């Protein structure tokens, strides 16, 4: 199919921002804040289906950062100091791994506004992927990266199953660090082989669709190994990826093309994006076109909400054009 969805957290609408600020300054109580989150969640869900997106998320408005539900929700991890979020002017709290990591309850499912999700549409959820989680943490317990990543992959596996049970049909694993960090030629093979094995554990026994969404870095540098990763789709940040290199490979997997720039307020022209998408699709699918999703390159929450809404309309419009082209 050719479809579209968002790639992660949506921006908090301005009324909600005001409430969170008021809460910080102790001017409103938790209950009032909670009501605002619910109301805002309803409106960001509605905006997604009004724009015509094929999978709907709950907007992740409560997530303080991609890792936080796990930083706070897992045993064995403590919340550390504010740290820059890649090359952005935003910050996350560094997970400090102090002990054996345990999940004693479902994490993301319990954060979701399940009652607000539209019954007749497909649902998508987002989880942090193991490499990124480790890379952004301070490890004081595990003997090496691999040991932690396998452990975290088991937790992700349980999370995916619990989300599938309540009706989610699509899981995005966010993996920015893998493409952001330099990848030395001599360690590339081992690193990506480890990724492959870890992902096997993460998706084992699950039947819903999964996407490894990379961003903030050049996707082409994890090729060709990524083509064999045990996920259904691979997510690509078009604002960081060398298209010419990408086009050298033939794909037998679906892709999520991050064609709209979440880190720029300029609203893209659909025509230009359609041209770029066509070119990529035609070169990476030489025999048969697989699933193609048009999406923002990363979480839209770098933008004010009003601008994010316009960008959702752009991805929807690009998707419509592409469907006409390739039907």
């Amino acid at each position, binding site marked *: 199919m050719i479809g579209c969805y968002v790639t992660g957290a949506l921006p908090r609408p301005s009324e909600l921002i005001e409430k969170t600020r008021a809460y910080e300054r102790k001017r409103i109580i938790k209950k009032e804040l909670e009501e605002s989150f619910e109301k805002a969640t309803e409106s960001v869900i509605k905006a997604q289906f009004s724009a015509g997106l094929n999978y709907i998320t709950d907007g992740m408005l409560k997530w303080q950062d991609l890792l936080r539900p796990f930083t706070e929700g897992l045993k064995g991890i403590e919340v550390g100091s504010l740290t820059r979020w890649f090359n952005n002017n935003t910050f996350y709290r560094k997970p400090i791994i102090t002990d054996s990591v345990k999940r004693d309850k479902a994490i993301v499912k319990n954060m979701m506004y399940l009652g607000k999700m539209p019954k007749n549409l497909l649902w998508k959820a987002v989880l942090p992927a193991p490499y990124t989680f480790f890379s952004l943490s301070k490890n004081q317990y595990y003997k090496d990266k691999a040991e932690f990543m396998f452990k975290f992959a088991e937790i992700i596996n349980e999370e995916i199953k619990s989300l599938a049970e309540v009706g989610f049909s699509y899981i995005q694993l966010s993996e920015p660090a893998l493409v952001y960090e330099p990848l030395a030629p001599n360690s590339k093979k081992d690193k990506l082989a480890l990724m492959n094995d870890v992902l096997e554990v993460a998706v084992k026994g699950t039947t819903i669709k999964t996407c490894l969404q990379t961003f903030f870095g050049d996707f082409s540098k994890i090729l060709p190994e990524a083509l064999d990763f045990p996920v259904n789709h691979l997510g690509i940040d078009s604002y*960081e990826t060398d298209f010419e290199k990408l086009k050298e490979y033939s794909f037998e997997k679906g892709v999520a093309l991050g064609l709209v720039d979440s880190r720029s*307020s*300029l609203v893209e022209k659909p025509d230009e994006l359609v041209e770029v998408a066509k070119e990529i699709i035609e070169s990476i699918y030489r025999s048969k076109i697989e699933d193609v999703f048009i999406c923002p390159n990363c979480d839209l929450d770098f933008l*004010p909400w009003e601008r994010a809404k316009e960008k959702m309309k752009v991805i929807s419009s690009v998707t419509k054009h592409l469907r006409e082209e390739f039907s």
Partner: protein
Amino acid sequence: MNKLFPTQEIGSLAKPRWRIKGYRGKALSEEEIAEAVNWGRKLGIENLEELVKLLSEGDSTNRKRAILEWSSKYAIRFFETAGLDIVFDGEQWRSEMYEHVIRKTAGFKFLGYVKSFDYRYFNKAACISKPKYAKSFYLDEFLFTRENTKREIKVPFTGPYTLVDWTFNEYYEKKFSGEIRDFKRRKFEAKRELLFDLIKDVIRPEISKLVDAGAKWIQIDEPAATTNPADEEMKLFVESFNEAVKGFNCIFSLHNCYSNYEILAKYACELRNCSQLSLEFANRDSRQTGTGNARIGYKKIKLFEEHGFHGNYGLGVVDVHTNFVEPPELVRDRILHVVKIIGDPSRIYVSTDCGLRTRTLEISFQKLKNMVLGAELARKVLR
């Protein structure tokens, strides 16, 4: 400066409630007016009855301006009374380091709040046309400060790289959309052109005004300098600093904090006309006295030395994010530890990690006094 270990602050100081509410035209409580009087007495400010009268008046343009001047005078006396050698006015004329400049420059539009972290946000602007100098943003504040102190002045100046990095770049991205196909290249070139247009048409004209008005030392604040550690971005940052300060008869320094010093160290020696790097270390350090192992927070200064930076250091010896008041002996040992690493004590200016605006005036005052005392203790040891 002839004195060893001159003391300085970085820029911002908390604004008193009478400054914030008074400037907004809101009525002040008796308690808030009393606070103004108490601090005024403590700092030896003259004609306090005039301030009390002003604070009790209704809002007007003249009153706003007068309140800025009063709070500016308070901050200058505050730093002087604490004993600093190099002062400014605690940035009392500025709402915030980014917004203050962007609001006074043509070509930008604020789009609203975007997230910073947790429940914190910042008001982010987009560049929507070629930036144009509209009105001066630092000159009046500098002139007032100059009139009101005999101490050496260092003017904090938000750097162009940070202004650009914190701004959406609609105008230039659109401009390049027909010319450059590669999205990444397009964004980079758009950033580059915005940066150098801003330097040429806004930053340099303002520096020029300050220098003409007698500014001798301008500190370029670039918190975003290492946000993007890629080589081409770091080169762009260095080039932007060099271009901004080129050819002026003035001393320049760079302040960068809570950043990636491994990266900055590699590029610092390429900064031309940069007499001082003021860096933050105290917050990374232990609170035990002593030189050597206790000074874990100062490890990274070695990197700057190894990469060949020969200028001075504005050495952060006071953490601006805690209420812990560094004892003079701790300040002394932080200084002496770095003397051992770099050899030449005359390269050290004693400094806070960053601006003090998040601390109360009481805490800031104690911290600065101890910093001054600690510098004196260090001088005694070397005498």
